[in-house]
């Protein structure tokens, strides 16, 4: 009767086994630091342009909407404050993670999926290498290092996007915008803005690796894994955003 639950339960179990193995490998030799650096370049530097663009335009759009709403109450000067809080706490981490997920969870799933269907994963095992240690752990470390950094960059560029709109459309003075932007943030916001991308980094890298490594069925299977990786990581990012936000809201000093 409960057979329909079997597949998702097994999937969750397999995911946790992968997560456990990848974490355990952090403390086990050999460490593939060359692969970590290559992945940091691919995931971090490779995603810089799209996350910067996303950050800039989300900050600009937010300033556009908020500036108009605040104008009704004569509070246009608080545009920078609203933009910075929403960007740092919520939109920066979520949108950056979604963009990185779209680019890299799919990339990881298709790369590992192709390796799986062409027996490269089997070959790796036959040649004495643990595929999780060689392929998963470096991607996990690289994403955990780069996603928070990309988020900070996207946040700053988003604030700049908000400034462009506030300055040219709402005629806000630079000093007024930047001082409210800066003062609006406290360490609690910064912590929230860094914890989120750090947790999302495990979702993006491990979901991509998980679907890649369980690929079956040739090139069609690779396409299926890629889609599943993007959809699953995207949904998980939103679900986790809710729970992490809830945790920070309740633990907030204010």
């Amino acid at each position: 009767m409960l057979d329909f639950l079997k597949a998702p339960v097994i999937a969750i179990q397999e995911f946790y086994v992968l997560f456990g193995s990848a974490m355990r490998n952090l403390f086990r030799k050999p460490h593939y630091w060359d692969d970590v650096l290559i992945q940091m370049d691919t995931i971090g530097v490779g995603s810089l342009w799209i996350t910067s663009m996303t950050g800039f335009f989300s900050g600009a759009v937010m300033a556009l909407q908020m500036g108009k709403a605040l104008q009704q109450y004569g509070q246009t000067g608080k545009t920078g404050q609203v933009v910075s809080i929403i960007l740092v706490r919520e939109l920066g981490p979520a949108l950056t993670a979604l963009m990185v997920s779209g680019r890299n969870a799919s990339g990881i799933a298709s790369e590992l999926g192709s390796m799986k269907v062409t027996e490269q994963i089997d070959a790796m095992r036959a040649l004495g290498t643990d595929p999780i240690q060689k392929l998963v752990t470096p991607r996990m470390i690289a994403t955990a290092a780069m996603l928070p950094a990309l988020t900070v960059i996207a946040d700053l560029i988003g604030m700049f996007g908000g400034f462009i709109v506030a300055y040219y459309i709402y005629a806000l003075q630079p000093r007024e915008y930047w001082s409210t932007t800066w003062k609006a943030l406290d360490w609690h916001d910064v912590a929230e803005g860094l914890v989120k991308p750090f947790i999302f980094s495990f979702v993006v890298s491990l979901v991509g690796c998980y679907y890649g490594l369980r690929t079956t069925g040739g090139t069609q299977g690779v396409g299926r894994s890629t889609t599943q990786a993007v959809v699953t990581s995207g949904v998980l990012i939103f679900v986790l955003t809710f729970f992490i936000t809830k945790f920070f809201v309740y633990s907030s000093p204010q």
Partner: protein
Amino acid sequence: MAGGNGTGGNGTRDSILRFEHVTVRFDQETALDDVSFEVRRGETRIILGAAGSGKSVLLKAAIGLVPVASGQVFLFDQPAANLPEKEMYAIRGKVGMAFQESALFDSMTIAQNVAYPLLNQPSIAVKPDEARSKVKQTLEFVELGETLTKFPSELSGGMRRRAAIARAVVTKPPLLLYDSPTAGLDPITAHTIIELIIKERDTDNTTTLVVTHRYQDGSLVANFRYNSQSGSLEPFSETSTRFMVMREGKLIFEGSQDELEASPDSYVQKFVKHTN
């Protein structure tokens, strides 16, 4: 098992690979069904069968790449079925495997691919300088000396197979497994690959298992040997080659080439005649 003489029970002193009632299942599907046989040192074994008959699974089960549902696999007289992955690495260091579609790492050059087992196999791990000279020597052995810096995607199908063979043999393992080495190749290239397998077997006196669906490949391996002085193949009658035929996961025949050709089993007969 028509014509079969699988040993089951205990192996002999020279046992390199032994299957004892091995069954492999994927979900509800049985890929290997109660398979037993033994390969001794220096022997050549040709495993014939149609697509989906379990030939490749048999090779993967031999080195622990697929889990065994029941039975036991002995590699070099050590139980090897369902061992933890880390323990398998030491045993796999003594086995070379050439995969069906070459399975070369796309992101690495041919030299890096061939050097991979030398540098990463925990039980081998040689110094980079030594690895470089061995790689060069092995690629020259498979006549790919000019491809060191090329990537797999830059090579033809036949060249990729040769590079995969180079990667399998570079550590000079005592047991070599070839999974459909000629599948998808034109007859001339397929012949070159089989020549290479014979050359490797006779140069290093390696125990060799060749999975194929082409009877003529098996026949060539069984009846020719490599003459290192003339550098070519020559007919050879004192053969230590045995044949096996797989059908739907079952080992339905095991014996010599003469026994194979004389087998009363209609499937074996059809298979041999069809591919002859």
